[in-house]
């Protein structure tokens, strides 16, 4: 499978990654190679194999429902670019 430069730009946009125009072709080649490898792996017969959700053969440990985190807003917000009235301020996200 071969990705076009436009498809690479679209993928970068979806992942919100800024890429240099000059690198687009190289990314297209690398990503296409990866997809080729996946296509090759896709040929393997796996119908009888249960999909793996995690490489570790263990089950999730659960946490008791207790509150042990306490307010550290001041700490967290000391590194925030902009705050007001306890809120984090970000560029407007909807019109």
């Amino acid at each position: 499978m071969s990705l076009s430069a436009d498809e690479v730009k679209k993928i970068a946009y979806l992942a919100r990654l800024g890429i240099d125009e000059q690198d687009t072709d190289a990314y297209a080649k690398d990503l296409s190679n990866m997809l080729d490898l996946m296509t090759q792996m896709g040929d393997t017969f796996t119908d009888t194999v249960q999909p793996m959700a995690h490489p570790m053969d263990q089950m999730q440990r659960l946490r008791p429902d207790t509150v042990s985190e306490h307010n550290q807003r001041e700490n967290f917000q000391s590194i925030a670019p902009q705050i007001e009235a306890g809120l984090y301020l970000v560029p407007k996200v909807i019109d």
Partner: protein
Amino acid sequence: MEWETVIGLEIHAQMATKSKIFSAASTAYGAEPNTQACAVDLGFPGVLPVLNQEAVRMAVKFGMAIGAEIAPYSVFARKNYFYPDLPKGYQISQMELPIVGIGYLDIEVDGKTKRIGVTRAHLEEDAGKSLHEDFHGLTGIDLNRAGTPLLEIVSEPDMRSAKEAVAYMRKIHELVRYLDICDGNMQEGSFRCDANVSIRPKGQKKFGTRAELKNINSFKFVEKAINIEVERQMDLIESGGTVIQETRLYDADKNETRSMRSKEEANDYRYFPDPDLLPVEITDELRKQVKADLPELPTAKKLRFIEQYGQDGESATILTSSRQLADFYEAVIKESGCEAKLCTNWVTGNFLGAINKAGLDINDTPISHQRLAGLLKRIADNTISGKIAKQVFDVLWESDATADEIIEQQGLKQITDSGAIEAIIDKIIADNPKQVEQYLSGKDKVFGFFVGQAMKATQGKANPGEVNKMLKDKLK
């Protein structure tokens, strides 16, 4: 053309855990912004989610209550999207292998029972809140809600009218509160709903293109939003247009739905299993525990009330509408030892009337089940008449006194001394010869006048049964 409406609902119920689904920050509503958002909720580098066992237990409980298959093995996935209400850049949700599989719920509409399929229910984290006003063109973000456990309950497209959709939503609402897994507070956003709505020509098998309605936060709005959307789709198709699959926002002020589609590219969530979380195993032991904890469910309770207490369907529906009310009712019966019928009449009548009039929740009732039972006992043993009881009830509502204290203080005891009643009746007959004549000449209605006079003369304290009997005897 005749159209058929097809509706499926996605209900989001916040699980009533103390801490968040993947962090140990509090989920309490109404705190100062961002004071309950810890490093995990803020998506700081290096933090790891740890799953809350209570959230899992609650999801299993819901699954069992709708007769669903509980997955023995369940997986969390990342749903990727960029929006500042979830700083990680993804929401932890479930895609394949949700905790709760196919189940069902029976709803009742216009006296008919209909079975609505539940496709699945999965656990996920809630997002934070964005505030778009008053920040000099910026958006304010409060992440207290981020990470609150949500159970997303997805129905089959089995509903055929807005009415059915509301009935289904109410039923789920009733159920999650019965199970004590969600407080159901819609104003605070604990229980929310999106509706998938489409129409198709009647008789056609294939579904039409659906629109997803967001932001519906009350039962009233669900019905209105669906109806207005159905109208929009009919007008659109009948004037030659086509419905496009999109997300639409319901605006309650204008009673319209409008497209939320932006010029941006459609979202591609790129789901994949979350490498930070191992698969969850729902053990037989957990299942057994949850099953043992399962309360009597609304439908079973309703049938029992009809059978055990001889109620009609309507009373049983009212009394089982919440677990608290049903418990209150049964506590009144137990405490008073009175006939169920008397208790039913008083709880559904005066008591609920007063609760609704005051806009109170049953949990905030000013009359405890003990005090109401105290009143009913005095009706049952004929200490007071039903009419006087209403008077006593009003005082119970306003004060902390018991019914016995009120009856004693205000001298409301029924006159049981038949000699005293007889004297009063004799006097009424003597004072009203004209009415006596009318009655004897066949005007039965005048009988009510005599009863009224007797009750007035005794300030309502005479036993009405006795007064009736005595009057009948005397006026022969």
